[in-house]
């Protein structure tokens, strides 16, 4: 590894710190993750297929990915609205609401889970009025959807916000002075330059919601095939000592989230080549 030090730095400690970094990284992250993939290799392709195509597994994956996608769509739209209000307008409490956006990042997921459940339960502050309208949120798939919206909102806001702040006002003024009305300026000039950031935020929110556990399981109801998310099914299979089942589901989810992260990296590279903003 020492031959890799391209810049002839006179600083000491490259070999030692790089060695420690790689060792610790391997012990904590790489070996445990490799163990997961090795465990899957113990399964024959048939076994793997049977586990993945069992009705309960398919439904759990469908619920996790489907609702996470729907929630990320809501986050995309609402995140955009929130960013617009926070960056472009001044209103009382703006800075407070700006800080509040980070709460889903900071609040432990179990706390978010019990709080959302109590809020949306049939006697809860929001659950009671919704129940009168005939809408049941807690202990239904809608509850999962709500929890996933909660957990995903900061991702869209925090990826789009800096881009909108940095956006050159002169381009807008140019568009306006060339006769574009406000709607055209926003939809044809501003939104297109936000697309990479919006998609990145969407992908991050989606990835987080797919794997989310703590904030979802309390409000979900956890009925197999109806409101049982994939991470919960992993936990259930583990408690039944069906390690193979748990591993197979985990590998599918892990591969999916790696693909999402890969897509995000691609998006960011695309964004960098596309907008020379600095």
């Amino acid at each position, binding site marked *: 590894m020492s031959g890799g030090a391209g810049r002839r730095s006179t*600083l000491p*400690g*490259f070999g030692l710190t790089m060695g420690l*970094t790689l060792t610790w990284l391997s012990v904590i992250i790489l070996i445990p993750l490799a163990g997961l993939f090795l465990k899957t290799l113990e399964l024959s392709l048939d076994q793997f297929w049977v586990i993945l195509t069992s009705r309960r597994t398919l439904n759990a994956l469908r619920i996790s990915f489907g609702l996470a996608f729907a929630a990320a769509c809501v986050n995309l739209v609402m995140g955009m609205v929130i960013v617009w209000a926070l960056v472009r307008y001044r209103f009382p409490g703006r800075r407070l609401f700006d800080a509040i956006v980070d709460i889903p990042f900071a609040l432990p997921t179990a706390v978010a889970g019990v709080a959302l459940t109590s809020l949306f339960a049939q006697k809860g502050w929001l659950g009671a009025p919704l129940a009168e309208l005939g809408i049941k949120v807690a202990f239904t798939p809608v509850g999962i959807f709500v929890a996933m919206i909660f957990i995903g909102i900061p991702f869209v806001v925090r990826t789009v916000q800096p881009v909108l702040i940095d956006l050159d006002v002169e381009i807008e003024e140019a568009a306006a002075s060339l006769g574009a009305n406000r709607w055209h300026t926003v939809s044809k000039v501003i939104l297109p330059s936000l697309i990479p950031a919006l998609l990145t935020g969407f992908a991050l929110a989606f990835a987080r919601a797919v794997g989310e556990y703590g904030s979802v399981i309390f409000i979900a109801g956890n009925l197999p095939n109806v409101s049982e998310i994939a*991470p919960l099914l992993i936990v259930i299979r583990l408690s039944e000592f069906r390690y193979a089942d748990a591993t197979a589901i985990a590998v599918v989810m892990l591969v999916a989230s790696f693909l999402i992260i890969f897509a995000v990296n691609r998006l960011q590279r695309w964004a960098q080549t596309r907008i020379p903003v600095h």
Partner: protein
Amino acid sequence: MNQSQASSIPARDDLRTEPRLVRGIIIAIAVSFLTVFVVLPLVVVFAQAFSKGIGAYFAALSDPEALSAIRLTLMVAAISVGLNLVFGLVAAWAIAKFDFRGKTFLISLIDLPFSVSPVISGLVFVLLFGAQGYWGPWLQAHNIHVLFAVPGIALATIFVTFPFVARALIPLMQEQGTQEEEAAISLGASGLQTFFRVTLPNIKWGVLYGVLLCNARAMGEFGAVSVVSGHIRGETNTMPLLVEILYNEYQFVSSFAIASLLAMLALITLVAKTILERHLDEGQIPRGD
């Protein structure tokens, strides 16, 4: 938060912003969405915790089970923050102060835990150390307890909090370059002296920032810890796990009392984070995710 300052000329203002009604609607949607989805859940935690009065609240917190959960959470957080702090400093030194091939790849490996579901972060350790895991039988034969004990909980927590300190430090140290350190070395300082006297004072706010976020996640982690803990009452329940157990037993005041401590931790973390971000120069704010 630079704002296009409100222009004094109305005609010009029209070109740059939306009609008053549209502005009002957008602000109303943003504020009510954040209120419903973020503010109310936070308020409900404290409302529930104090719903039977202050006496019941403090009684819930001084329950032996609660105290043991608080103790375990503090211990696990101290272990994982301590180890990840050392790792973060070491990794940031290697990555930020030297050029080598595969640097981007190495950084994305460090970032991996951010994209792994918490449940899977726990599962990988069950597969290694569980009774049916790779090393489970050997550990059992030697009577070493990793799973359903403190080492397992600490390992899972270290896994999920792995990137925080390193990610806070790498961009900061890259920006600061190597000149000051090279000067110190050429004046005869040893490597460690250079690190502690030159580098560390320059990155102290970044270190605090990383430790803060790492600690918040370590104390609040639920999914990963839930898988490896075994939920042994009074022994392997951290605070988030106790919140779950008490909630499922309909002991809502006790559950939300513990939850309120974690919520306060989150709020303090956010305030401290804002202060630290002000200390770090505007251009050098590390990404907080």
